[in-house]
């Protein structure tokens, strides 16, 4: 099969083919996804829209300028996996999760609904944005 192909296709073209496929692969890896929000933004929409609010957008970049990872992922107790933290607004108001800082003492309090609940309607929960590979399950 290979020898037959080789006799019909000029040599430079044969060299071009794997190159083009590789270029395509690199292209696929490097092109940004349609949703090009800031890298590390988390959409939290397990309950928000069902309760009639906009989805919550959590910007990692904003928070890591001001706090180290351990503050939220050790002291506040957020698990390092989008979707595994069951955040209720009642918890936040009582000072758990986001409410540990967003309490009008360290940061603005939970009365500022619109600052967190600022997402477009219909967004799915999860970490969104940035040139990640998305993992083999998503290719």
């Amino acid at each position, binding site marked *: 099969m290979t020898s037959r*192909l080789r006799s*019909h*296709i000029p040599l430079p*073209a044969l060299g071009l*083919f794997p190159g*083009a496929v590789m270029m*395509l692969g690199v*292209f696929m890896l*490097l*092109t*940004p996804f*349609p*949703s*090009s*929000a*800031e*890298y*590390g*933004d988390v*959409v939290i929409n397990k309950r928000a829209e069902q309760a009639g609010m*906009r989805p919550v*957008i959590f*910007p*990692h*970049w*904003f928070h*890591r*300028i*001001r*706090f*180290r*990872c*351990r*503050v939220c*992922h*050790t*002291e*506040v107790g957020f698990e*390092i*996996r*989008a979707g595994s933290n069951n955040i209720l607004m009642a918890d936040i108001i009582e000072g758990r999760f986001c409410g540990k*800082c967003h309490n009008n003492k360290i940061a603005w309090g939970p009365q500022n609904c*619109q*600052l*967190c*609940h*600022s*997402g*477009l*309607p219909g967004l799915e929960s999860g*970490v*969104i*944005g*940035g*040139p*990640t*590979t998305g*993992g*083999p*399950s998503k290719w």
Partner: protein
Amino acid sequence: MKRRLVEILLVACTGLMLAACSGPMQEQTVPAASDVFAPDGPGRWLPIIADGLHDPTGPGAKQLQNPAEALFYLPSAFSGNKVRWVEAIEEGYIEPRPSILDSNYKMQVLDLDVIRTRTGEMPMVLFPHRKHTEWLDCGNCHEWLFKSKRGATRFGMFDVLSGEYCGRCHGAVAFPLVECFYCHSVRRKDLKTPVTELEMHK
């Protein structure tokens, strides 16, 4: 005939890719320069109102800080947030608080490099504890995700790409997985001592 087919297929694929990439880019409205404060304009970071995630008609979108405003003066990178976060801390550009409970808390920095040697044809992986412990506690990774004992945690690149182990952060928040050689940074031929003696050093 076959060659012609392949050519057509390639052109079609490239066209589709280009269409897919340029479509959403054109839809986004480019804001006025006054909306986004950055010396080189809003090019590197999308403003809140046009990032495809925030609702530009909502009351919050205009009150939130734009990424460009905060990130343009930090050491720059090509991927992720376009910021070298570890350098930003080490060179003093930012000083994120290490604790909200204890004002005197100091980060427990551990200066220990680990080399993972079984990486196939790729260069070996160097894991610097120091860069990670400037952000994280030991308990964020040990012992539930990574065992402290050498060689006790077995995982592969496939796990990482699926969001497990290193992929819990890298590919989501920490620098993305397109930067192969940030981690795969030790070439075998550069090592003078045998690999077995070097799995943990310093």
